[in-house]
């Protein structure tokens, strides 16, 4: 992480950072400041920049996304991401059709590149898995058709 993105991030996450430093987090946990701006970013590049420090990535076939082709209920879309890349530092999940594309970002701490969770999708779009490995970003995507959106009322 270079100095500029660090500054940007610390400013953006100011409010949450205050909450964190006020002792609301469980003791003994070392957590990075919550990237609030990244979760409110409207496009994928901006969101990625906020959470992993760069908005550009290369396509990789070594990242596998397991998600349904058609999701009947957009509020529960099971997604499993595995990667054969070595030295995976983080895995980020984005849904590009959502209002704010960033869904979650997992830091792996040397654990195997495997994450499975359930996400919300507002409408049909791509699920994007972005893997950080050796300081570079690699991504793969899969289209999921949503018949009932998960973000509406």
């Amino acid at each position, binding site marked *: 992480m270079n100095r500029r993105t660090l500054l940007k991030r610390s400013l953006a996450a100011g409010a949450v950072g205050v909450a964190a430093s006020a002792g*609301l987090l469980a003791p003994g946990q070392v*957590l990075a400041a919550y990237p609030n701006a990244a979760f409110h970013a409207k496009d994928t590049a901006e969101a990625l920049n906020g959470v992993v420090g760069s908005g550009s990535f290369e396509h990789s076939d070594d990242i596998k996304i397991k998600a349904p082709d058609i999701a009947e209920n957009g509020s529960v879309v*099971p997604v499993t991401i595995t990667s054969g890349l070595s030295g995976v530092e983080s895995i980020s999940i984005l849904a590009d059709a959502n209002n704010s594309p960033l869904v*979650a970002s997992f*830091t792996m701490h040397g*654990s*195997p590149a*495997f994450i499975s969770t359930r*996400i919300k999708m507002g409408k049909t779009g791509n699920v994007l898995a972005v893997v950080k490995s050796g300081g570079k970003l690699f991504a793969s995507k899969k289209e999921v058709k949503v018949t009932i959106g998960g*973000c509406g009322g």
Partner: protein
Amino acid sequence: MAKSIKVRAKAKQGIVTVKALMNHPMETGLRKDKKTGKMIPAHFIQEVTAKLGDNTVMSAVWGGAISKNPYVSFKCSGAKGDSLTLAWVDNKGNSDSATAKVK
């Protein structure tokens, strides 16, 4: 918010597979209450941390686009008998944690 987490960890050939379910409304802050027409305030888990013993094995930042009552599964290296602790913190400052023995 006691006992909001169910966590299981199973070891196989040095790799521990962790599966966890958390009880949480995960409101994005973008939905309207149908009766009152008012926006439902955002309330979602922001940070999740997993530790095996004293080592952090997985940490995550989440947005409101993780489904209600989140499920998460991941792998880490470890062995039978280790203790795995999973903790979350939400945007209102609530937090909870649970510990499971690796089976």
